[in-house]
């Protein structure tokens, strides 16, 4: 059988094209393609070369419309045993092609050509075309005889024209030869034989039969030559005769041959016009042809030779003629019949040709799967021949089937499926993947077939020695069908991959990815340290409001944005490394070593860093891939470039995404990530990335370690944050702000230090102090803290963060062109202050204690409080003042001490030391009298609270007494009240006044604690203190209008003229005399009354002396104390802010303890006094009572 047959084949003159000498393959192909342009030479062009030697047998030759057809067979073909039967099978001409530069000796060329022509005895014309001869060869060649044609070097057009002329010459020669042949044949009756005719010696009957048949066969052969000569009418005449004769002699084989020729003549005559009548005629005649070929089957020589090939060829010819979509059914029927004939064919190569032709015809019909089926049959036939060339052919044929079986290499799908892919991806991105379109992604998943085809491609590629094709096939097989392949098979494929790679040069790329599967795991946005903020150059605070365009919180235009949000935008910066996480999966049963994997960036402005990964069997791994953007512009990352199994491949994320999508729908065999135990991941799309020019980059570091700062409640501590510019651009602008919870815990940020360091050059560093104060743990937290899980509080959400917005230089705004251009964005550095607040001291309660400790009556007057206030700061060092606060000096008397008692408990496991400081406020200047701070100096211990203990801290409140009771205190509040009524105190402004004064008081009390060496802080007790003081603030704050003191005046009432100030300094000297009074002795005493107001007070003073039983022992019936002087109803007037002495003497009859109490009834009290005394009615007497004084009387009764 011959390939590529059609009905018109009968009219083609077969020409062998032989390379003579060495012709480079490229040039040979080029020369051949030049020849192919002259497959059809019109008779009109031939006529100039044609000379009629005798009368032409082709009487009806269409000189104006006909043509001669050539069929060039490159490399020639062996002579066919059937060439007598069909003259078009004869090689009627030989064209040698010689490339002169590689064959310098033209003589030897001619010799080679002559010997080559000897293989073609039927050749009527022989020509050798020599291209590109040298000048010497041109001279030489002209002598060498007529059948060497030299084509002088010239441009292509000239050469082609030259070649055309030559071909016309050949055509004319052939035509004349055909004429000769026909003329010669007609009278003689040539003997034509076919292998079908019996080879045995003919018996007489058969000889007669053969003689009869000879005439018909000769007519048929003449008809063939007429056809070759391009004269269909003449051919038809001969064929008609031949048909008649063959029918008569029962020569079915030749009958069919003649019929075939007549159909060809018909078609040539009609010049390729196909109408239904012609088609019907052809179909009818060819069915007859097929029938007669079948009839000519002779059983006896079926083993040796069979007309089957002709039957099949005729079938194929008819099929090719009819091969149109509308007639598909008919064609399929013909081709199915032809395919059935295959098993009867003896020669394997015939079967090969048959299948090839069937496949081609199915392909033409558009039946790709049928074509693929027969192509695969062809490939199998090739594979049965155990040689390399056959294997290469098999591989090429199989490569053609891959499209139908949908296992094509990516390289081949790249062009044709591009638009299809585009639509697919857009649907995926839209998020509205319809079910049908999901399915369509996995169309024709005939995994069994696909695996077989790929395996065959692998096998043929290995045999053909094409390692790249083998690698690609193995890669596709392994990647797509690993779930269907046993572990042993997987190992085999892995070794096939590495074996193929061994034969490939290193760095070979293959379009088909093998393992591993790679999907995008996450696209880390900028870490908060590198956040990029759009800069709004119009505003001072450029970081704010860049996104906000209008005055409205809600704009309808922003409504549409959420859909775009899924496609987030990412900004990368030139020169700053970025990272992308991808997940690799190896679902196969062998260890996979990925020699290198890096991001593939077609946009070319990105330097990716390769990494090496080892994947154990059935495992997946998340890998960080990093790189550095190198230039400004958009970046696209469609996938990764992987160097695995010795070959570089491109792995696209989209492919794996589609695969996973199919897996979720149950359309794909298996999800490679899931079978590796990896969790399902939502689809991550690659954001649109753009690269911007370098920006400054601040890096922060907390000096002394980046760990959490552990603080107790209320603790105050300084930390230092060091900021360094790690970028390549100086920082020009910077702004520090706070965000997050507990912003008030940051007391101070030295942003000025930072600002003064600007511009911060690359590499420069600046350290700024930040003062922190730990917040209070809220109640809920405190509950959990009870379990000592204090570290739970260090949740990030609780800590404040420093936001540092910074930016590089603004472009020169003076230039209007740059103003339009994009302002380089700024950045934001987020410094989370990792504060972990531990529970510290807890405050239990506060209450006000009021104590009245009676003083001893001594020689000294106790110092009134207001005198303390007049002390200068130097007095801080006076120790006895300290005494007075902590201990009560019994000789100095007491005037109603009030203490604030704070009860604190320590639930923590560290020890706390408490110190109380009170800030005193004076009218002229303010100085802090931190008692316990001084006490440290003087060895007084702090209040120490051990773990799990409670303690009480007393805060003396006497210091808050004002020196003078005047209206200023009240007036201040009245004016604030805004009413014109001065000095009248209603309930409501009393309330307001109280609150204000309490606040004032509380703010001056500070309870500090210290724990360990370096943690200290302050307790927040304001609320509690306020509650405790609410009721009795006036008593705490305001002095009594009158103060009373007693003292002994040993030298008589008149002798006492020493100033109390001096006396206080002499206290130590008089200490011996203080203490006791002798019984049975007249004891002179003084009571001193001080007016604390700014107005004269009239009063009547009473002095009472009581014994331990509390009974008045002066006035009563059995008095134990005698007195001289007035004790009761002493009317006196005390000028403002002065004191008056009143002397008297007592005579104690009985030793023991006595108490002296002075009291006064104020007459004509003004409003201030009334307010102080909290009287309601103006006529109520105001009674003032001094503190009790003790008198110890010693002696015998």
């Amino acid at each position, binding site marked *: 059988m011959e390939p590529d047959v059609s009905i018109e084949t009968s009219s083609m003159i077969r020409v062998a094209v032989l390379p003579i000498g060495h012709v480079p393959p490229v040039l040979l192909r080029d020369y051949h393609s030049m020849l192919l342009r002259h497959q059809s030479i019109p008779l009109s062009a031939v006529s100039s070369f044609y000379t009629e030697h005798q009368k032409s047998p082709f009487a009806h030759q269409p000189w104006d419309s006909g043509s001669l057809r050539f069929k060039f067979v490159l490399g020639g073909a062996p002579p066919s045993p059937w060439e007598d039967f069909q003259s078009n099978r004869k090689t009627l001409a030989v064209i040698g092609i010689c490339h002169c530069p590689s064959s310098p000796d033209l003589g030897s060329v001619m010799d080679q050509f002559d010997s080559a022509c000897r293989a073609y005895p039927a050749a009527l014309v022989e020509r050798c075309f020599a291209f590109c001869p040298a000048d010497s060869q041109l001279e030489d060649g002209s002598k060498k005889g007529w059948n060497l044609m030299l084509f002088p070097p010239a441009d292509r057009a000239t050469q082609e024209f030259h070649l055309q002329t030559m071909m016309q010459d050949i055509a004319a020669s052939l035509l004349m030869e055909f004429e000769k042949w026909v003329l010669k044949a007609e009278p003689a009756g040539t003997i034509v034989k076919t292998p079908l005719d019996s080879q045995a010696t003919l018996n007489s009957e058969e000889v007669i039969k053969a003689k009869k048949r000879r005439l018909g066969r000769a007519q048929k052969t003449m008809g063939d030559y007429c056809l070759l000569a391009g004269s269909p009418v003449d051919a038809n005449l001969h064929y008609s005769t031949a048909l008649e004769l063959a029918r008569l002699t029962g020569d079915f084989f030749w009958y069919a041959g003649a019929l075939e020729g007549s159909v060809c003549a018909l078609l040539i005559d009609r010049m390729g016009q196909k109408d239904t009548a012609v088609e019907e005629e052809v179909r009818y005649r060819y069915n007859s042809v097929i029938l007669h070929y079948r009839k000519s089957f002779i059983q006896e020589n079926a083993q040796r030779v069979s007309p089957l090939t002709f039957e099949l060829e005729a079938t194929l010819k008819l099929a090719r003629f009819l091969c149109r979509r509308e007639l598909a059914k008919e064609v399929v029927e013909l081709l199915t019949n032809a395919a059935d004939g295959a098993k009867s064919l003896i020669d394997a190569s015939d079967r090969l040709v048959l299948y090839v032709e069937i496949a081609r015809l199915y392909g033409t019909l558009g039946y790709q799967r049928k074509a693929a089926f027969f192509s695969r049959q062809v490939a199998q036939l090739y594979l049965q021949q155990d040689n390399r060339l056959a294997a290469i052919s098999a591989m090429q044929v199989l490569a053609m089937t891959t499209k139908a*079986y949908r296992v094509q290499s990516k390289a081949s799908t790249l062009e044709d499926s591009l638009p299809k892919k585009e639509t697919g991806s857009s649907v995926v991105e839209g998020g509205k993947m319809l079910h049908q379109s999901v399915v369509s992604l996995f169309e*024709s998943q*005939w995994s069994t077939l696909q695996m077989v085809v790929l395996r065959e491609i692998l096998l043929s590629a290995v045999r053909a020695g094409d390692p790249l094709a083998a690698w690609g096939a193995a890669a596709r097989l392994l990647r797509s069908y690993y779930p269907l392949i046993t572990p042993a098979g997987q190992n085999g494929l892995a070794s096939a991959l590495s074996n193929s790679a061994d034969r490939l040069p290193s760095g070979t790329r293959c379009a088909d990815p093998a393992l591993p599967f790679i999907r995008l795991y996450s696209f880390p946005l900028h870490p908060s340290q590198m956040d990029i903020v759009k800069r709004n150059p119009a505003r001072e605070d450029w970081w704010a409001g860049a996104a906000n365009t209008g005055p409205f919180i809600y704009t309808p235009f922003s409504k549409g944005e959420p859909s775009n949000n899924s496609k987030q935008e990412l900004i990368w910066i030139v020169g700053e490394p970025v990272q992308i996480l991808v997940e690799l999966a190896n679902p196969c049963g062998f260890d996979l070593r990925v020699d290198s994997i890096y991001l593939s960036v077609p946009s070319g402005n990105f330097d990716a860093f390769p990494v090496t990964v080892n994947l154990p069997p059935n495992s997946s791994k998340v890998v960080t891939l990093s790189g550095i953007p190198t230039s400004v512009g958009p970046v696209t990352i469609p996938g990764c470039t992987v160097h695995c199994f010795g070959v570089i491949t491109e792995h696209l994320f989209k492919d794996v995404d589609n695969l996973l999508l199919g897996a979720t729908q149950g359309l794909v065999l298996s999800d490679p990530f899931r079978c590796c135990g990896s969790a399902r991941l939502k689809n991550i799309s690659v954001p649109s990335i753009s690269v911007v020019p370098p920006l400054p980059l601040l890096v922060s570091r907390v000096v002394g370690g980046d760990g959490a700062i552990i603080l107790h409640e209320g603790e105050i501590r300084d930390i230092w944050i060091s900021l360094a510019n790690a970028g390549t651009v100086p920082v020009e602008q910077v702004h520090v702000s706070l965000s997050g919870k507990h912003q008030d815990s940051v007391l101070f940020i030295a942003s000025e230090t930072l600002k003064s360091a600007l511009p911060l050059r690359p590499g420069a560093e600046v350290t700024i102090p930040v003062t922190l104060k730990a917040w209070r743990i809220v109640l809920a937290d405190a509950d959990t803290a009870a379990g000592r899980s204090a570290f739970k509080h260090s949740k990030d959400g609780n800590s404040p963060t420093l936001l540092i917005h910074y930016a590089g230089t603004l472009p020169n705004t003076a230039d209007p062109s740059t103003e339009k251009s994009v302002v380089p964005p700024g950045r934001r550095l987020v410094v989370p202050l990792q504060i972990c607040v531990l529970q510290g001291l807890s405050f239990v309660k506060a209450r006000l204690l009021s104590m009245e400790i009676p003083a001893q009556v001594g020689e000294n007057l106790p110092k009134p409080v207001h005198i303390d206030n007049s002390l200068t700061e130097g007095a801080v060092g006076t120790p006895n003042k300290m005494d007075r606060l902590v201990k009560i000096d019994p000789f100095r008397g007491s005037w109603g001490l009030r203490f604030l008692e704070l009860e604190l408990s320590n639930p923590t496991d560290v020890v706390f030391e408490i110190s109380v400081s009170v800030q005193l406020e004076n009218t002229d200047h303010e100085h802090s009298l931190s008692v316990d701070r001084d006490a440290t100096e003087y060895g007084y211990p702090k209040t120490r609270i051990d773990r799990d203990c409670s303690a009480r801290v007393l805060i003396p409140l006497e210091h808050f007494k004002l020196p003078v009771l005047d209206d200023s205190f009240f007036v201040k509040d009245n004016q604030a009240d805004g009413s014109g009524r001065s000095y009248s105190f209603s309930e409501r402004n009393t309330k307001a006044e109280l609150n204000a004064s309490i606040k004032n008081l509380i703010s001056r009390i500070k309870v500090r604690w210290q724990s360990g060496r370096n943690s200290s802080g302050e307790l927040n007790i304001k609320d509690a203190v306020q509650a405790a003081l609410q009721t009795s603030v006036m008593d705490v704050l305001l002095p009594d209008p009158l103060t009373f003191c007693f003292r002994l005046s040993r030298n008589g009432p008149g002798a006492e003229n020493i100033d109390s100030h001096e006396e206080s300094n002499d206290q130590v000297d008089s200490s011996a005399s203080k203490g006791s009074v002798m019984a049975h002795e007249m004891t002179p005493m003084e009571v001193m009354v001080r007016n604390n107001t700014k107005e004269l007070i009239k009063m009547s003073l009473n002095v009472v002396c009581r014994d331990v039983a509390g009974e008045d022992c002066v006035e009563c019936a059995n008095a134990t104390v005698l007195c001289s002087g007035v004790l009761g109803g002493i009317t006196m007037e005390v000028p403002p802010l002065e004191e008056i002495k009143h002397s008297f003497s007592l005579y104690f009859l009985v030793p023991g303890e006595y108490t002296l109490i002075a009291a006064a009834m104020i007459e004509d009290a003004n409003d201030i006094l009334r307010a102080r005394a909290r009287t309601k009615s103006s006529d109520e007497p105001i009674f003032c009572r001094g503190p009790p004084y003790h008198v110890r009387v010693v002696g015998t009764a």
Partner: protein
Amino acid sequence: MATTACFIIVSRNDIPIYEAEVGSAAKREDAAQLHQFILHAALDIVQDLAWTTSAMYLKAVDRFNDLVVSAYVTAETHTRLMLLHDSRNDDGIKSFFQEVHELYIKTLLNPTYLPGSRITSSHFDTKVRALARKYL
């Protein structure tokens, strides 16, 4: 019972959603592959043939060597039931197709079955094999 029979259901997307070798001949892997290749190729013919007739049973549509492909195209989803066989028991094949069609419709009615995806029900498989024994 036919010696060779390969039954396959092809969804409208040309994906085989069910495959079964129901012949009595000993199972050989390469033969099974060839069967699938033939059936796959026959899809081209079924595709054209289905529009030329209103019948769902298309009879023998294709053949390769001794193996004949019969096809049955369901109306509702253009699902193709295809049988590769070497016997010429037309009536049996027709009945077989009709019964399998009914089974297939029952599968389609299963709300958890995604039309166009693989039929993995073992019940379906058992039933199909029983029908093959009965009719082929």
